[in-house]
């Protein structure tokens, strides 16, 4: 291909990850309370069907960075395990890069990289370098590519100082950086990151986030990120999928979520004189600490300008500030209230 003609890349019209009506149920033993219950469970078993994932339809294009978030036990890990092929769905279909993961687990494994924040794939007793060597053999990475990738990772993840240190002696931050390099040595098309920044300090978190952004940009790697740290999501993901109680309750752009759910803003007003009996009919006072008052308003019914005008009609002010809702607050609200929401609304978004 002549220079100057940018190749369209391997981008196909088919999404790289597609699930349809995905469902997974687990059977668990129901046991009575206390010792009697524990002993009883040894002899007679009553099973209970627990739905972990229900009717999950996800379609992800190559090169996307998607935040897959939800409260504990929402079904995130179960979905990821099905995408990696280690759990077989109860019903529904999955295709990852044209492969049904649980039918061709090993073939699927060549296309993916996985990082668990709470679990390492590095060899505990051996120096970091040896784990990389082993992974080179496992994924049959050509020597030249291995050298190139490793050099790059060593540089941007600053691995040099501890390449010869046994993994058990590494700090959490060092180990995580090692795990990231390990997961990406074979240039996977897709990486699943499960709580990759958990327990890390601010500097290490930022290093990891920059690394994720870099591989996505440079190699077009598709990234599925599950996390409880919404700062990760804000920094990296344009799209988020929210799951709760096994069902997808939101799938779309992050900003849209903010628009849709973050309808309340806060106007912070600094009054010229403390006004202990500050009052504005029909306006909710979120917090008052004279001379500062926080007013909550719905941006769909009131504009900030109108509210400021109403305040200045009654009181003299020195300063105002508008606070946008934090994504953290929005998600918390959805976790709490989302269940009552008509599901149709979320899917219409």
């Amino acid at each position, binding site marked *: 291909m002549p220079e100057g003609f940018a190749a369209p890349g391997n981008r196909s019209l088919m999404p790289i990850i597609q699930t349809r009506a995905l469902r997974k149920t687990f059977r668990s033993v129901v046991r009575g309370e206390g010792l009697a219950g524990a002993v009883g469970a040894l002899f007679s078993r009553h099973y209970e069907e627990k739905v972990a994932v229900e009717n999950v339809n996800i379609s992800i294009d190559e090169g996307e960075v998607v935040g897959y978030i939800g409260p504990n036990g929402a079904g995130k890990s179960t979905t990821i395990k099905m995408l990696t092929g280690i*759990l077989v769905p109860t019903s529904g279909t999955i295709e990852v890069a044209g492969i049904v993961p649980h039918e061709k687990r090993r073939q699927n494994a060549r296309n993916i990289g996985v990082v668990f924040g709470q679990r390492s794939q590095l060899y505990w007793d051996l120096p970091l370098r040896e784990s990389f060597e082993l992974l080179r053999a496992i994924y049959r990475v050509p020597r030249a590519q291995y050298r190139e990738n490793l050099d790059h990772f060593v540089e941007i993840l600053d691995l040099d100082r501890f390449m010869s240190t046994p993994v058990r002696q590494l700090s959490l931050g060092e180990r995580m950086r090692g795990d990231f390099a390990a997961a990406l040595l074979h240039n996977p098309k897709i990486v699943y990151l499960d709580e990759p920044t958990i327990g890390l300090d601010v500097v290490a978190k930022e290093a990891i986030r920059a690394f994720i952004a870099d591989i996505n940009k440079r190699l077009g790697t598709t990234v599925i990120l599950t996390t409880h740290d919404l700062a990760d999501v804000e920094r990296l993901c344009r799209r988020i999928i929210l799951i709760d109680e096994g069902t997808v309750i939101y799938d779309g752009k992050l900003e849209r979520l903010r628009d849709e759910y973050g309808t309340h803003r806060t106007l912070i007003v600094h009054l010229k004189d403390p006004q202990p009996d500050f009052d504005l009919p029909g306006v909710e006072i979120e917090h008052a600490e004279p001379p500062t008052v926080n007013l909550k308003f719905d941006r769909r019914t009131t504009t900030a300008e109108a509210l400021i005008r109403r305040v200045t009609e009654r009181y003299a002010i020195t300063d105002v500030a508008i606070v946008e809702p934090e994504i953290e607050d929005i998600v918390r609200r959805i976790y709490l209230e989302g269940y009552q929401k008509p599901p149709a609304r979320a899917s219409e978004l």
Partner: protein
Amino acid sequence: MLAVLDPYFQFALKAMARESTYRFEVFTSIASLALRVYLLRVVWVALYARNAAPHGVPLHTIITYSAVALLMGLILDIDQTSLLHDKLHDGSIVVDFMKPISVPFYLFADGTGEVLFHAALIVPSLALALLIVHIDVPSATVLGAFALSFFLGYFVGFFLNFILNCVAFWTLEISAVQLIMTWVTDLLGGQIVPLLFFPAVVQNAIFALPFAAMFSTPLLIYIGEIPPERYPEVMGLQVAWILALGLIATVIWRAGARRVVVQGG
């Protein structure tokens, strides 16, 4: 073909490297072996002083038997697949299932690497044992048959351990079963007391068990109690056990792998 095997070769190498990081254990295992050789010599000498040689096995033969059995134990006493149990227990097995490898072959390669490292200890251990006892050396033919039978016994042991560790797919915890297994192997494998010394009524049954195929068969070949004309029969039985246990291991592994459900969801 070689490229396919390369990861497993690397697993074995890494397992050797891992074992070598625990240097203290190396010294203690050699020292403990020397101590056991000495103690067994004391016991047999005392027993033979008051009793006629059982089954006509002379004292020097029984001491040879014990010393060789203990040296074999350097390899056969290792649970090469304990990694499986550890991984099931802490849930890290998921990471292995997310790799393009055959997990049972990985476990086999890792176990073999571990074993090969410990096999290297045979040389210093043997040297130390020779300072304590005299060990008879049979003819080259017998030695060759012993080596082959020992090799077969290794596979019998591997599958027994593998099956045992697979139990952790269901129970997560297997230490009690393991303890029982150790006792049974010690007693019925013929590592401590030759199975020849057992009452005739139970002998046939015990010889037919897989435990005898691990220790007793190669040992009785070594001391000449099993003559060359019986080699096909006894080694045939070892092979039969390998096939049978291999089949059971495959079935139990498949069932276990299907139910890999790791904590948390």
